[in-house]
């Protein structure tokens, strides 16, 4: 969350000669991030990013207090000037009785007074508008002015419009209707913090926004100034559920210190007197059931040194901690700190205190040292799965394929298979990204169709696919997929590519069988383990997808030296007429089985029904003679004839 404040306003509470730029730079280094400093006439506007753990900094006094602690660390004088709260001289008792529910609200403060509604003076309007708050009238503006100075949101009712002897704080009921001050109607879910009058009408949505039936109008004469410190979780839930993100809601939901509420109230009274001619101020009602518990934390100097990495002299940081509202004590080598109420939500343990010490000391003063090598590090091979993935990607690139990164979520149409097997996203951005994919191919085909201007494409991707498992996290499986789009896309080019890519990582025992999935193409195996598919989708489109996790289990850089053969091989080509339904691989396997002198059989050529095989005969022990080969040849021919009814051309 961000807060914008005018430099001149900040300087009401911060005495320093530092320039706005210097203040911005030094606070960014040691406190909050000043994201921008804009010129505003002769003045400047700070745009400050406040982290969610520091709601106390959503105020000018909060920023001033930090600056007064930090600037002296850089040798610049600075002093925090707390707001001057004039004494209040209250009159009669408050005419309305407030009944609180301590489960919902930690503290309620209320006071009534007569006011005159007018526009605010220029200085108030300017300070609010530059802070991102619209100026409405002097009364509303005072509540926002107080919120910016002290950091606690505040509210005003028109007391006459409330027209009630009681204001009862309670949980909203289901389907209660309310109209907010911007005249929008909402139906409540139940559980929101609301206030009702003695007629049972809901008159406020606490901590978030005023309601149309009770807010100040141009005719208002008497107001109820009301400060409520609420349960932050309820505020957050209501604000998020209803989509009402007011400044008050974003601050209240972070958990504001109830201790500052009284300061906000009394400051507010003095401002009503100043800007709205407030008179007849009533007694202040303060219902305070949930007081914060004070906290003391002890910190060991060893731990400070251990986390920061160097010895930091306590004289360097105790003064600044004091400026920030901490009470510090060092006794017998133990450091004890009392946390101010406005930091209770943030400073809970030793580490939180050490963070304060470290940033006060100055991160920029710490040396940069690489962590030392440990003596007990585990041995790890450099040949890990990332090595293989990288190798495959490089190979694909050098064979002309371009890598894609497509989204892991897909539409129902792009999910492969029955949709009840899909992992569904409960809160998808759009229905195009609603299921976790179980295949990369549909995404790559989408890329093909998105790139209509390109005629030939060779694409690949290596990403996880997600497979639903009963009762546990899904199986995330690394998948390797590619598509080839070109005129007369050749199945065998993709098959050969896969063989070479896998051979390069030491996987050479692939088998290809006619697809078990029914389409035109092949199922790919390592021995009996199923790797995936090559699919012929069209005359110009071929794709493949393989289980990379499985492939990597077989990947190896193992090197084996085979001695060169001492005796020359004999080669022979055999041309067979054989039924086309017989697979080439079957014939090759069959021939190889005939003798261990047959060392290699490859398909050399095909023509109509005939296939020519190139056969290599080799004996490692001696020279083969022509008659050896003739004998083997005879055996091959006879067995092929018997097994496949093949005849020799």
């Amino acid at each position, binding site marked *: 969350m961000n807060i914008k404040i005018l430099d001149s306003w900040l300087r009401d509470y911060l005495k320093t000669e530092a320039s706005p730029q210097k203040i911005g730079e030094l606070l960014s*280094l040691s406190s909050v991030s000043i994201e921008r400093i804009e010129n505003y006439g002769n003045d400047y506007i700070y745009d400050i990013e406040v982290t*969610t753990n520091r709601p106390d900094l959503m105020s000018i006094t909060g920023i001033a207090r930090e600056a007064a602690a930090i600037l002296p660390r850089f040798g610049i004088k600075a002093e925090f000037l707390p707001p001057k709260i004039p004494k209040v001289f209250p009159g009669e008792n408050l005419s309305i009785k407030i009944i609180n529910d301590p489960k919902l609200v930690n503290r309620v403060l209320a006071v009534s007074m007569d006011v005159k509604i007018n526009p605010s003076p220029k200085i108030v309007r300017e300070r609010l508008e530059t802070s991102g708050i619209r100026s409405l009238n002097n009364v509303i503006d005072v509540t926002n002015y107080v919120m910016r100075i002290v950091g606690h949101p505040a509210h005003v009712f028109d007391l006459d419009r409330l027209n009630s002897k009681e204001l009862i704080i309670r949980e909203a009921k289901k389907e209660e209707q309310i109209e907010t001050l911007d005249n929008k109607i909402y139906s409540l879910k139940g559980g929101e913090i609301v206030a009702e009058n003695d007629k049972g009408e809901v008159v406020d949505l606490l901590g978030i926004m005023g309601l149309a039936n009770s807010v100040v109008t141009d005719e208002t004469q008497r107001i109820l100034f009301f400060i409520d410190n609420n349960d932050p979780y309820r505020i957050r839930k209501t604000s998020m559920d209803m989509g009402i993100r007011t400044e008050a809601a974003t601050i209240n939901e972070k958990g504001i210190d109830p201790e500052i509420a009284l300061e906000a109230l009394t400051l507010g009274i003095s401002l009503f007197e100043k800007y709205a001619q407030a008179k007849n101020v009533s007694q202040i009602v303060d219902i305070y059931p949930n007081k914060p518990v004070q906290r003391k934390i002890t910190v060991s100097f060893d731990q400070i040194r251990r986390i920061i990495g160097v010895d930091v002299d306590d004289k360097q940081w105790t003064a600044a901690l004091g400026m920030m509202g901490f009470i510090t004590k060092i006794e017998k080598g133990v450091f004890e700190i009392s946390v101010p109420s406005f930091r209770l939500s943030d400073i809970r343990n030793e580490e939180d205190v050490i963070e304060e010490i470290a*940033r006060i000391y100055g991160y920029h003063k710490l040396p940069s040292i690489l962590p030392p090598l440990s003596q007990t590090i585990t041995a*790890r091979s450099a040949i890990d799965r990332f090595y293989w993935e990288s190798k495959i990607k490089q190979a694909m690139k050098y064979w002309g394929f371009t890598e894609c*990164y497509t989204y*892991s979520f897909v539409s129902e149409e792009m999910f492969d298979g029955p949709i009840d097997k899909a992992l569904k996203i409960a809160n998808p951005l759009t229905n195009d990204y609603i299921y976790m994919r179980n295949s990369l191919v549909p995404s790559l085909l989408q890329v093909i169709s998105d790139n209509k201007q390109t005629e030939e494409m060779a694409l690949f991707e290596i990403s996880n696919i997600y497979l639903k498992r009963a009762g546990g996290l899904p199986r995330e499986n690394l998948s390797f997929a590619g598509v080839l789009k070109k005129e007369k896309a050749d199945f065998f080019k993709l098959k050969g590519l896969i063989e070479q890519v896998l051979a390069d990582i030491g996987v050479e025992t692939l088998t290809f069988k006619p697809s078990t999935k029914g389409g035109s193409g092949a199922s790919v195996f390592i021995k009996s383990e199923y790797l995936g598919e090559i699919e012929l989708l069209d005359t110009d489109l071929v794709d493949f997808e393989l289980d990379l996790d499985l492939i990597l289990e077989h990947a190896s850089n193992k090197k084996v030296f085979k001695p060169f053969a001492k005796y020359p091989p004999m080669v022979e080509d055999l041309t067979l007429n054989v039924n086309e339904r017989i697979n080439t691989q079957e014939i090759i396997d069959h021939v190889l089985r005939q003798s261990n002198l047959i060392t290699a059989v490859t398909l050399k050529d095909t023509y109509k029904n005939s296939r020519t095989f190139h056969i290599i005969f080799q004996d490692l022990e001696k020279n083969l003679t022509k008659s050896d080969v003739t004998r083997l040849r005879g055996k091959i021919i006879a067995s092929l004839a018997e097994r496949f009814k093949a005849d020799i051309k």
Partner: protein
Amino acid sequence: MDEELIGIKNTALSLILESEDLESLEETKLQFLGRNGKLTLALKKITEVPVDERKEFGILANEVKQAIEEAIQSQSNKLSKRKLTRVIEKIDVTNPGIKPALGHLHLVTQAIEEITAVFAKIGFERVRYPEIEWDWYAFTALNFPQNHPARDEWETFFIDTPPDPEKGKMVLTPHTSSGQIREMEKSKPPIRMLNIAKCYRRQSDISHTPMFHQFEGLVIDQNISITHLKGTLDYFAKSYFGPKRISRIRPYHFQFTEPSFEVDVTCGVCLGKGCKLCKDGWLEMGGAGMVHPNVLIAGGIDPKQYSGFAFGWGVERVLMMKEGMQIDDLRLLYSNDLRFLKQF
């Protein structure tokens, strides 16, 4: 008869030497050695030679044939060489070369490989953990209280499935920090982890894509301090962005680290002086911090014995910062438009 052979040899040799190209040499070859060639015909006349002279005739005939063949071979070699020289003289070297196929690796892959290599040199081991995780790993174990507003900063995608009674809802990891707990469960300190993975958040606009990549560093050992985090950040800034770049840390807030930092790197254009591009000389790189003791405890590590630091940054962000790339819509990175992919 012998004279005839010698005559044939001489004529042939002079014709061979005179031939200017491979075609005329081939003609000469046919003229003498072809089926009806002069030498072939002459040799057929061996029947006319008296029987006792045939042996010598045979020897001579062989010599002549061999001489002619050798001459043809040597002239042929000469001519082929000359032909080659001529071709080389004729080519236009400015004509396009014949290129082997070359594809492209995605920018994100290129960045990941470089980041991995930089950290490998100082002993970080790359790991990978689930992208679909239990809430426990993504939030609760990282010290995010239930209902804490900080949780909403991670606009998280949830999987439509019943929650685990102990580990909570199933989410798409909104950050790589979920890997911290997985790493602690898997290995004992010392830990030097580099977890690079896809992350998901519910946002899609010109500077956000619903899927993106982060790299997460985690170091846990005895006596790990802020100075070691600073050392590592500076090492990365210099190794990845260039030796003149430096890094700094500023206070920030994250649930899972204490202290927490925002990390800046000096702008590559002005090196920290401040310029139009960077305003004040620094560019925001991402978050880091000392591992919160509650996170160590959730990971089964004793915070009294060990301390650590962690950082997690966007791969896309450091990539854009490094290249000074002005991509006006980050979604282009994942559009898979080939006009984009082929540029890198």
